[in-house]
């Protein structure tokens, strides 16, 4: 299909945007930064086009459904939300160094979707349980949450790297990373957005499970892991808002939280349960 061909090219486009963001940081040239933003924007436009095309193509196949329902489509959408959120952050902060830490996550998601032999890019019709509008709400909210957590993760890594910066070191690379307090604040904001969307994602999934299986919570491994993730970020928010934790501890919690996100999303598929779509 044309859509998956375009999407496999977009993978390389995101690799180039990562490459340019990195060059910008190492060489300290604005031109590379401009190129990076341009390439990312172009990739995002193509990415959006391909997702819409996939939707259209599903109608041409007589299946007709939103492209949000298997592992391939979810990875593609995950990368899309990361890039969208990143572009908004770049636009608001006017800082491009964040790109070097976020675009690789989108690139890896795209590469995994496009080139992993276990993942089929074919448009399959929906089994009865997946035919629900709650599914669309569930997937969209979950992945906006995951994307915000991915950004928080990238920002936390940057925060820890920035700690290595010393004035006498004169490292260009570290010098271009924003001030620690800004990273800390941005990362917190991303966690807040992620937490709201993760909550929405869990709730919509729960409403959907209730209409499909007759129970809104069954302690299925995916449900449980989403709760674990939720608890970790709840702990992070409480430690910051009530205990006033900042800096290293928070960055560490945010990194642990993102590993929980990854396990909820991908790791759980290797455990038995309702969501084990990756096994097919």
């Amino acid at each position: 299909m044309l859509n998956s061909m375009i999407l496999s090219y977009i993978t390389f486009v995101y690799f180039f945007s990562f490459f340019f963001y990195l060059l910008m940081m190492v060489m300290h040239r604005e031109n590379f930064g401009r190129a990076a933003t341009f390439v990312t924007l172009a990739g995002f436009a193509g990415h959006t086009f391909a997702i819409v095309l996939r939707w259209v193509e599903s109608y041409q196949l007589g299946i007709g459904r939103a492209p949000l329902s298997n592992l391939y489509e979810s990875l593609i959408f995950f990368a899309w939300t990361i890039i969208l959120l990143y572009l908004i952050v770049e636009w608001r902060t006017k800082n491009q160094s964040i790109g070097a830490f976020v675009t690789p996550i989108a690139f890896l998601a795209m590469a995994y979707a496009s080139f992993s032999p276990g993942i089929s890019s074919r448009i399959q019709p929906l089994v009865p349980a997946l035919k629900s509008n709650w599914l669309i709400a569930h997937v969209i909210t979950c992945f906006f949450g995951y994307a915000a957590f991915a950004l928080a993760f990238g920002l936390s890594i940057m925060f820890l790297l920035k700690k290595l910066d010393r004035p006498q070191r004169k490292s260009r690379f570290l010098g271009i990373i924003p001030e620690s307090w800004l990273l800390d604040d941005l990362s917190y904001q991303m966690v807040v957005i992620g937490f709201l969307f993760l909550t929405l994602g869990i709730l919509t999934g729960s409403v959907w499970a209730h209409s499909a299986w007759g129970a809104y919570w069954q302690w299925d491994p995916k449900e449980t892991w989403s709760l674990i993730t939720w608890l970790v970020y709840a702990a992070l928010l409480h430690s910051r808002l009530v205990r006033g934790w900042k800096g290293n501890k928070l960055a560490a919690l945010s990194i642990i939280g993102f590993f929980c996100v990854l396990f909820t999303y991908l790791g759980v598929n290797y455990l038995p349960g309702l969501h084990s779509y990756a096994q097919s």
Partner: protein
Amino acid sequence: MVQKESEKNTQPFSLWKAFSSIKLTLFLLILLAVASIFGTLIPQQESAMRFAENLSPTLVRILESMQLFDMYHSWWFRFIIGALAVNLIVCSLDRFPSSLKRFRSTPGADREKPFEDLPEDRSFPVKTAFEPASNLVGDLLKKNYGKVERKEKGEATFYYVQKGRFTHFGVYLVHLSVLLILIGGIAGSLFGFQAFVNIPEGEESDRVFLRKEREAKPLPFAVRCEKFTVEFYPNGTPKEYRSDLVFLANGEAVFEGPLRVNHPITFQGITFYQSTYGTLPGNQVRLSLKREGDGQNSFVDAQVNKPFALPGEEGEAAVTAVRSDFMRMGPAVQLEIRPKSGEDVQLWVFKNHEMIEQRFPGIFERFPRLNPASFKPYTFFVETMDSKFYTGLQVSRDPGVPLVWAGFVSIIIGLFVTFFLSHRMIWVRLSRRKKGANIALAGMSSKNAVGLEREIGKLMTQLQKEVEKLPSSQ
């Protein structure tokens, strides 16, 4: 710090104090997260049995004593959730008075403090007469914020507006929602039930089987499955499962409708979900009869328990039972033969007769009751057996669901209010100058200082624009 610690130690231990600790919250949140991980690694409930078969008996006993095979319903897991709930309630009650105070606080409109260390770009001179400018400020603030407080103090006029006072309560709404969801869950497990029932096409059931208690539960009505349909896509993926159900009260059809996945039906407070399906042998069997000496086999379409005459007038026979898998050797029917003379004969006829003969040579000779040729001079064969579907329904009643749904809605509102809205207070001070006045703006916010700065900036541009329209004083 050291002194503080020793102070704490001398205080008597207070349960309230222990549970109002945020450290306890963090500990419990992480403990609950870590405990939950175990349940995803150790197979739970039904799958636990298969898993336990591969373990040593001692290990199984240890795991069992910790209730690790049904961990999420164990006393200790519930204890952690309970402790977290108590912690949440105590913390909320402990902090609520201070939020109420902040909600009610009415900082004086003429406060000078916010204007200390005010950046220069937060004030601008006005060349018009003082009174019109002051009225204009008052009107604009009233338009933007509703309620405006005004106070004169010396040579200056102060205005004070605020918005988002209620945001101090957002966090309590979130906590209340969590409790609401927990209460809904408890209500569901106390007053609701989770059951299932399999109903063959054309049949009805007035009882369901409780999953947890493993016992039958009578319903105040009966459910009949008229028909079950499964549709497939061309590639073989299932497209739709549908049961046409009829609900009967006192034997009369009261309600009927199709039940599909994702489209449950609720009848008299009990909800039915399409869960699984399967096939059962029907009651139509096509038999082939070989009579020794006759050239051709004769065929009989038999219905269960409806006797038919044997073609050679030796007597009557009837199919008395149909099994989709008899003695693990595949589908079979039971025949009862009543000859005109002699004793009745009962025998089983397998559909896969030849295959069984190959796998177990001589089996039919040894067991006359399994031998399709034990009633002379006939040999019976099963040509076709019709099958029918049964539908598998999940049946549940959960009075806690409305509470859970209410909790879902309010937790989202609460999170939004807590994280994205803030209590903003803005003061505007007009100081008299020889010619006109000086207008200064200052503010305070419960959070999101950047947002406040932006709001003040916007308000200032708006004020500047409006003031310029006034005629300047000489």
